[in-house]
């Protein structure tokens, strides 16, 4: 019994330690909660916007991990990430380098639950620091699959 309790305690400590500093990519984790609510756009609203005719479409950028982008992404979205890594932030910077600062940009990730996403706030922060004034962030509460794909919104895959 005592042994079981010690094992459970040791496992809990290990999990907490790993959770606090999980992987290389999460070393500079900026929480998604740091993004102002006014900058968020919900999936239904973005899907309607992308579907509407006669309106200029925003540039949609997936700033997460390439394996997930390759499997499925918002139709028309481009890849520019992962923003959790400096190399990914450079890619993002290169993609928007020639755009006017008031370009209409929507970024998203959806790799994991919103509060755990290592990419989205880092990407938002970088775009804002580069001077972009019209950056919106797609709010994917659970993940891209649950909040976009399963809702039947338009998806493409890279092959």
């Amino acid at each position: 019994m005592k042994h079981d309790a010690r094992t459970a305690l040791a496992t809990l400590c290990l999990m907490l330690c790993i959770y606090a500093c999980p992987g290389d990519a999460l070393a500079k984790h900026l929480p998604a909660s740091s993004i102002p609510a006014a900058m968020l756009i919900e999936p239904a609203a973005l899907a309607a916007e992308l579907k509407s005719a006669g309106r200029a479409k925003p540039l949609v950028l997936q700033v997460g991990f390439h394996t997930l982008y390759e499997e499925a992404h918002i139709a028309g979205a481009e890849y520019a990430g992962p923003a959790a890594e400096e190399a990914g932030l450079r890619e993002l910077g290169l993609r928007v380098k020639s755009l006017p600062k008031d370009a209409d940009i929507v970024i998203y990730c959806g790799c994991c639950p919103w509060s755990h996403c290592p990419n989205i706030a880092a990407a938002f922060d970088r775009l804002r620091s580069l001077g972009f004034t019209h950056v919106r962030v797609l709010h994917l509460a659970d993940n891209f699959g649950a909040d976009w794909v399963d809702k039947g919104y338009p998806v493409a895959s890279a092959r």
Partner: protein
Amino acid sequence: MKTVRAPRPGRRIGAAALLALGIAALGAGSARSAAAPLLNRPAPLLNRPAPPFTRSDLAGKTLRLRDYRGKVVLLNFWATWCGPCVAEVPRFSAWQKRYAAAGLQVIGVSMDDGGAVVKRFLRRTPLAYPIVLGDARLGRLYGGINGLPQSFLIDPRGRIVARYVGELDLARLQMQIKALLPRRPG
């Protein structure tokens, strides 16, 4: 790859098969805990044979899913960048050690963009089960891995009896696994 004996037919396998349906039904609300989870979203793969695949694991050994027939398989899609995933894997590793003799096999599928970062992670956090690298093709084969963590519970007959999306209620999952094991845990 671990050498796995062929399934030994027994009453517990039969009982596990009967339990599978119940577990699948339980799943709809079961792993949804206060901690977050989204559980068992409708999946076309539920109660169907797990799609077969063959991959090299990170140790360079060939891993064939079909070789684990007769065992309960926890197939865990994860990544080093996924906080909830890395919180779960030490527990899965502990289960692998504890329930291996009773017929559990955990298999990790990393959705990282390459193996180097996973190997670094495993040096810091060794796991007692094989890890293969996933990709878009394997993700599509399993109905779309469009967010992590995501896990599948596969019964000894090779059928998917539950799919878990999001953070798990690990205590409940452990109960579900124990109910399916072909042999009594020691």
